C-alpha cells in the first residue's frame, strides 16, 4: 500500500507540474502580446517594455519557464492590475472567508446528503427514492448563481428573515471589536466567546452556504444510494437480517459503514467543485472571498489575479484528489 501512495504522490506532483505548464502556456505563449496583457489595457508603452523585461519575454521560452517556476516557488504570482498589490498577498486575505464557506457547505452536504441517500436506498423505487433522485439530479442542474438570487429574493426581500449579503452586519462591524486570530470569522468569534458576532456571522452564512451546498448534497446522496444498494445485496447483510437484527441497525451500522468509502471520496472531490462554485456565488452575496475576487478580476480583465486564483484552485483540487485516492487506498479491501 505504501508503494501505491508513493506512486500516487509522485503522479500528483507530475500533474501539478502539468497544471503549471498549462497556465504558463495560457499566459505567456498563446497571447499575441503577453506583456501588454499582463500590465493591462491602460498601460503606457514604457510599462509594456518594462513588463517584457520583468517577465523575461525577450528570452527563449525555456528561460521564461524557468523564471516562471522560480517565481511560483517563491509564491510570487505577479501584481494585481487594479490594486498593484502582490496577488499572493491578496489571495491570502480573501482565502479564509472562502474556506469557511466551503467547509460549512461541505458539512451541510454530508449531514443532509447521507441520510437522503440512505432513505432512498432503503425504499428503492418508492416515493422517497423518486423524490430524492429527482432532487439529486435537480441539484446538479441548478445554476448556482440563480439559486443564490432566488434565496435572497425569498428570505431577504419577501420574508425579511436573513441578511442580503456580506459576512457581518454593518452595525456590528462598526460597533464591536471583531476577533481576529486565525482569520476564520466564525471560528474566531466562537473561541473568544463573542456570541453576538458568532450569531451574526451564522445568519450571514446560511444563504450562501445552502446555495453552495446544493450541488454536493446531490452528489453525496447519489453516491450513498448506489454504494448502499450494492452492499445491501451482500451475504453478510442477509445473514444479519436472518439473525433478526433490527433493520435500523442493519442499515445504519452494518451497511452504511461499508459504503462510507465511496462517499468519503465523493466528499473530497466535491470540495474541489464547491470551491469553483463559490466563484459564481460569492459575488452575489458580497462574500469577501476569492470567488468575489476572481469575479471582479474577470470584469476588469486583471490577468495576474485570474491566473493566481486559477493556479491556487487547481493545486487545491489536485491535492484533494490525492487525498481522495489515499482514502480509497486505506480501505483494506482494495489494498494491492
Amino acid at each position, binding site marked *: 500500500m505504501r508503494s501505491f501512495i508513493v506512486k500516487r504522490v509522485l503522479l500528483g506532483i507530475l500533474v501539478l507540474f502539468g497544471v503549471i505548464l498549462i497556465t504558463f502556456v495560457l499566459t505567456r505563449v*498563446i497571447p499575441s502580446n503577453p506583456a501588454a496583457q499582463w500590465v493591462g489595457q491602460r498601460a503606457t508603452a514604457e510599462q509594456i517594455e518594462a513588463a517584457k523585461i520583468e517577465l523575461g519575454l525577450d528570452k527563449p521560452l525555456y528561460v521564461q519557464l524557468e523564471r516562471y517556476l522560480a517565481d511560483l516557488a517563491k509564491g510570487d504570482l505577479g501584481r494585481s492590475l487594479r490594486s498593484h498589490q502582490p496577488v499572493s498577498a491578496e489571495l491570502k486575505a480573501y482565502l479564509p472567508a472562502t474556506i469557511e464557506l466551503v467547509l460549512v457547505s461541505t458539512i451541510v452536504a454530508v449531514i443532509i446528503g447521507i441520510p437522503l441517500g440512505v432513505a432512498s436506498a432503503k425504499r428503492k423505487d418508492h416515493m422517497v427514492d423518486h423524490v430524492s433522485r429527482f432532487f439529486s*439530479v435537480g441539484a446538479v*442542474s441548478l*445554476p448556482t*448563481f440563480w439559486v443564490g438570487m432566488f434565496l435572497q429574493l425569498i428570505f431577504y426581500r419577501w420574508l425579511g428573515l436573513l441578511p442580503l449579503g456580506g459576512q457581518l452586519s454593518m452595525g456590528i462591524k462598526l460597533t464591536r471589536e471583531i476577533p481576529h486570530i486565525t482569520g476564520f470569522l466564525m471560528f474566531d468569534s466562537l473561541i473568544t466567546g463573542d456570541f453576538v458576532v458568532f450569531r451574526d456571522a451564522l445568519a450571514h452564512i446560511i444563504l450562501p452556504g445552502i446555495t453552495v451546498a446544493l450541488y454536493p448534497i446531490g452528489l453525496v446522496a447519489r453516491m450513498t444510494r448506489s454504494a448502499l444498494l450494492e452492499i445491501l445485496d451482500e451475504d453478510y447483510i442477509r445473514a444479519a437480517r436472518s439473525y433478526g437484527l433490527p433493520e435500523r441497525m442493519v442499515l445504519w451500522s452494518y451497511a452504511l459503514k461499508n459504503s462510507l468509502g465511496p462517499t468519503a471520496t465523493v466528499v473530497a472531490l466535491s470540495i474541489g467543485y464547491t470551491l*469553483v462554485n463559490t466563484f*459564481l456565488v460569492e459575488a452575489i452575496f458580497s462574500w469577501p472571498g476569492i470567488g468575489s475576487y476572481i469575479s471582479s478580476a*474577470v470584469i476588469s480583465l486583471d490577468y495576474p489575479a485570474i491566473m493566481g486564483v486559477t493556479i491556487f484552485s487547481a493545486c487545491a483540487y489536485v491535492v484533494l484528489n490525492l487525498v481522495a485516492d489515499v482514502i480509497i487506498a486505506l480501505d483494506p479491501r482494495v489494498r494491492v
Partner: protein
Amino acid sequence: MTKSSGIMNSIKPRITEIKLSLYLLCRNRLTRLSLGVVILLGLTALAAPFIVPHPEHIETEANPVDKLLPPSGKYYFGTDELGRDIFSRVIYGTRISLQTALIAVGLALLIGIPLGAIAGATGGMVDEVIMRITDIFLSFPPLLLAIAIAAFLGPSLENAMLAIGVSWWPWYTRLIRGQAVSIRERQFVKAARAIGTPPVRIIFGHIVPNCIAPVIVQASMDIGGVILTIASLSFLGLGAQPPTPEWGLMVSTSRNYFLNAWWYSIFPGLAIFVTVLVFNLLGDGLREILDPKTRKI
C-alpha cells in the same frame, strides 16, 4: 441475395436495437417526459425567430416607456430595464444555448476522438504521453479551466465555446481510448493490418467507427452540463456580451434590479434550470438502459 437486401439485413438488427432502446427509454415516465421536453426545446430553438411575440426586442431596440413591467397579457414574463420583452428574449435564448452547447461539445469531440483513438490504437509511448496529458487536463475542475481560457482569449460567446471545448475533450479521449484498446486486437483490425492498410486508415476507417457509439451517448448526456457552463461563463461576463439574449447574461444583468423586479431574474434562470434538468434526466435514463447492470427488459 441482392445487394440491397444484404444492406437491409445488416441494418435490421440495428433498427431493432434502436427501437428497443426507445421503448425502454419511454417506459420510464420521467424519462419520457424529459425526452418530450428536449424535442420541444429543439423545435423552439429552430423556430425561435418566427414565434417570439416581440422579435424587435431580441437585440438592442429600447422601449423605455415599458421598462421593468411585471408579467402581463402583453409581456408574459414582464420587461427588463430597457423595456424589452423578457419572454421573447428567453425563447430566443433557447436557440443560443442549444447552438453554443452543440458547437462546444462538437469541438470537444473533434479534439477528443482522434487523440483517444490514436492513443488506444497505437499504444506504447504515444499512448502514455497522450493519456498523461489527458490526466493533467482532467485534474482541473472543468469550469475553472474554462474560466482561465475564456479570460485569456477575451470575453465573447465564440471564445467561451472554444474554452469549453478545450476543457471538455479529455473525458472523450479517455472513453474512446478504452474502447480502442479492446478493438485493436479484434480480427477485422488484424485483417486490415495484414493486407497493408495504412495506420491512419485503420484508426479512422476501422477503429473509430466501431467505438464511437458510447462516446456519442456520453456527449449527449453532457449537453446539460455544457449549457450550464456556458450560462455560468456568461454570468461571470466571459461569455455572451450584451445585447445577446443569453440566459446566463440575462440573470447577470438582472442582479441590479431583481430585488424589485423578481420576474427579471426568475424566468431566464428557470429556463436554464429546466433545460439542463431535462437533458440530465434524459442522460440518466439513457445510462440506465445502456448499462447492462441496470437494464431490465
